[in-house]
C-alpha cells in the first residue's frame, strides 16, 4: 500500500471522521525511521482501546505498532482474548478468525501474499495471548515454526486466561491459585522460548514492555529476520493487573519487578548465527548508505 491509497476524495473530506483525516495527514506509514518516539508527535496506528485502564497490553500495542518497520505492507493476525478488543481500532489490516488458530491463519496468509506479490515485502505479524499461543493453539504455533513459515509470532504473556476471567494457563507460574487451579497450578510455567528455539525460530526474545527502546529493537529485528531468515518469536510480559490484584498505575512496576536478575522475565534472547550475520550485514549496508554522498 502507498500512502495515496488512504487519501480522501476532496468532496468527502469534510465528512470524514477527524481520526481518519489525522491518519492521512499525520501517520507514519512509509516513514523509514519510524519508532516509539513518534508517539505523541504523529498519528498513532491505534485509535483507542477497550482494555482495562492501565492494562500493560495497551502500551505494548502502542510500542509495537509504532515500531513496525513497514506498516503500509503489514497484515496482523490476532486471536480471541483481550487483544481482540484492540484490533478493531488498529489501522493496519488484521484478521480475527477463531481462538488459537492464529499461526495457521498466518501460514496461509503469508503464502497467499507471497504468491500475489512475489516482488514485494508483505510482513505478517501474529499477536495473541498465552492461552492462544501455548494451550489451545500450541500445535499450530509449533508446526508453523517446524515448517519455517516466514512470519513473527508475538505472545502477550499475562500468565492466565484474562478475557474469560482469570483461569489457569500453561504460562501461569507453578503454585498460582486461579480459577480452574483451585489449589494452585500443579506444573511449571511452560518454557516456550526454549521450545521455540528447538522448533526452528531464528530469533527468540522474552522481555517486558517496561523499556520502549528495547521493544522497538526486538520488534524490528523479529520482523526483518522473519522476511528472509525464518520464523521469530517474542514473548512479552503484559501483566493482567485486574487478575493479579494490582491498581491501574502499578503495571509498570510489576514489569520492572519481574525482569530483575533471577526473576522469570529477565531479558532472554536467542539468535542463530545466520540471523546475527543477516542483521550485521543489514547494519553495515545502512552505514554505507549514510557515508555515501
Amino acid at each position, binding site marked *: 500500500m502507498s500512502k495515496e491509497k488512504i487519501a480522501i476524495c476532496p468532496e468527502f473530506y469534510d465528512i470524514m471522521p477527524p481520526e481518519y483525516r489525522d491518519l492521512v495527514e499525520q501517520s507514519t506509514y512509509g516513514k523509514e525511521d519510524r519508532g516509539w518516539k513518534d508517539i505523541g508527535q504523529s498519528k498513532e496506528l491505534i485509535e483507542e482501546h477497550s482494555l482495562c485502564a492501565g492494562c500493560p497490553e495497551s502500551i505494548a500495542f502502542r510500542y509495537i505498532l509504532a515500531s513496525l518497520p513497514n506498516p503500509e505492507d503489514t497484515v496482523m493476525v490476532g486471536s480471541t482474548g483481550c487483544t481482540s478488543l484492540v484490533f478493531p481500532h488498529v489501522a493496519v*489490516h488484521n484478521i480475527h478468525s*477463531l481462538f488459537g488458530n492464529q499461526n495457521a491463519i498466518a501460514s496461509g496468509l503469508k*503464502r497467499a501474499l507471497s*504468491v500475489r506479490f512475489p516482488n514485494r515485502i508483505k510482513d505478517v505479524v501474529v499477536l495473541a495471548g498465552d492461552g492462544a499461543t501455548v494451550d489451545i493453539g500450541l*500445535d499450530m504455533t509449533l508446526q508453523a515454526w517446524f515448517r519455517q513459515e516466514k512470519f513473527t509470532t508475538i505472545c502477550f504473556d499475562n500468565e492466565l486466561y484474562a478475557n474469560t476471567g482469570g483461569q489457569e494457563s500453561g504460562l501461569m507460574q507453578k503454585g498460582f491459585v486461579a480459577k480452574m487451579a483451585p489449589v494452585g497450578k500443579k506444573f511449571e510455567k511452560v518454557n516456550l522460548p526454549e521450545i521455540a528455539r528447538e522448533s526452528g525460530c531464528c530469533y527468540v526474545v522474552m522481555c517486558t514492555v517496561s523499556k520502549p527502546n528495547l521493544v522497538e529493537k526486538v520488534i524490528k529485528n523479529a520482523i526483518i529476520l522473519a522476511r528472509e531468515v525464518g520464523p521469530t518469536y517474542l514473548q512479552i510480559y503484559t501483566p493482567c493487573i485486574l487478575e493479579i490484584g494490582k491498581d491501574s498505575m502499578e503495571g509498570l512496576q510489576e514489569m520492572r519487578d519481574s525482569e530483575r536478575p533471577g526473576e522469570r522475565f529477565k531479558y532472554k534472547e536467542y539468535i542463530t548465527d545466520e540471523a546475527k550475520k543477516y542483521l550485521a550485514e543489514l547494519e553495515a549496508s545502512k552505514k554505507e548508505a549514510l557515508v555515501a554522498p
Partner: protein
Amino acid sequence: MANELSEAQRSLIGTKNKKGQVYTDPYYLFNEAPRTTAFYTGSEVIKEAIRRASVDVMVAYPITPQSEAAALIGELYAEGYVADYMRGESEFAVMSQCAGAAFGGARVFTTTAGPGTMRAFENFPMWVGSRLPIQMIVTCRGINSPLSIQPDTLEMYFLLGTGMLIWHAETAQDFYDWILKAYIVAEQPDVHLPIAVCCDGFFVTHTKDTVSLTPPDMCLPPYDPYRSPVPCMDMEVPPVRMMRDPFVMKSNYISYLTHASWQEETRAACERSRKHTIPMIDGLIETENTDADILIVASGTAVSQGREAIRILEDEGIRCGLVKVKVLRPFPLEELREATKNAKYIFVPEFNVIGWLAQELKAALPDNHRIIDGPHVAGGMTMPAEVVVEEIKKTLGMTVATLAGRGS
C-alpha cells in the same frame, strides 16, 4: 455470463498463464469449448478440474477416500499449475490455513472427508461470516465409532447448518464440471461464500467413469479479490477502523442487531447464489417423469441407484419418476414443491443412518405423510437397486421376492 467477471478478470481473457494455458471466458469454457472423453477415477477427475481452475493455494491432509486426490493436486503444484501447496497438521489447521490464504486474496482449494470434516468444524461458520469463497471437496465417509472408512453421507447433515453453499455430485462428470463452476458462483460479489462440493466417497472417488473434459490448455480466469464484499487483507486498500468497540463486548441492541443482520446477510447471500447457479448447472434439481404417482427424490449416488430401480420397476409395469437434488444449500424449496406436487409416494433413498434428506423434505413439502424415508443404508453398505424396488413395492402393498443373499 460475461458480466459475471470483473474488469480485471475480463482483461486477462485470451492471455496465457505461466503454464501456457489461456485464460478463457467461463461461458465459452463450459458450453462451447471442444471436449475430449477420458476414462478416469473420481480422484483423477478432481485433479483434471483443478489443473484448469487457476488455483493459487491448496492445503492438503491425508484421509481416506480423498488422500489420492489431495496428493494428485500436489503433482499439479510440482508441475506449476497450482502456485502453492502444503500439508497442514490437522484438518482444523488446514481449514484455518485455507482461511488465511483466502483472507490474503488467493483462490483456495482443499479436500477432506468424514472425521476430517468433523475435526475442522469450527472453521466453517467462520469462513461464512468472513465471506471467504474457499472450495472444499468433501468425499463423504463414515464418522461413526468403531472406525470406518466406508462411504456414508452423515457428515453432510452437519454441514447443512453452516451457511456454506452445498452441492452434491452424483457422478464424476458432475464433479468435473461443478468444481470449475463452483468457483465462478462462489466468487460472485453478491454471493462470496465458501462452497462444499460433496460426493459419496469410493463410489465416485475410486471408480472409473467416462468423463468429457475441456481442453487442458484453457483455464478459468484468476480470482479477483477486490470484488469481495469485505476488504481483502493485503494492505492494498485502506485499513478501516472497523468499529469503535468490538461487538463481542457489548450487550446492547446495536450489537445484537449487527450480529443478527450479518447472519441474515450471509444466508441471503447463499440464496442469491441461485441466480448464478441455475444457469450454470441447469437448475438446483433435475427431474424425470414427475407426473408419475411414485417419485424417488435423492442426491449423490443414491440418484444412480434410484435410476436403476426405476428401470426395474418399468419392466414390471410400474411407473416411477425421479428428482435429483443437486444443490442442498440454498435449499431448492420451490423447485421441490413443484416437482413433487403430483406424487402420492415420495421415496428418499439415502446413504446415512438418519435420513437427513428425508428430514429436510418432510419439513419443506406439504402433505408430508407422502414421504417414505428410505431405504437407508449406512456404514459402507451398498444400496442395490433391488433394495429400492423392494421398499417401494412393500409400501405399495405388493409382494416381493426375497432378495438372494440377503440372509433369512
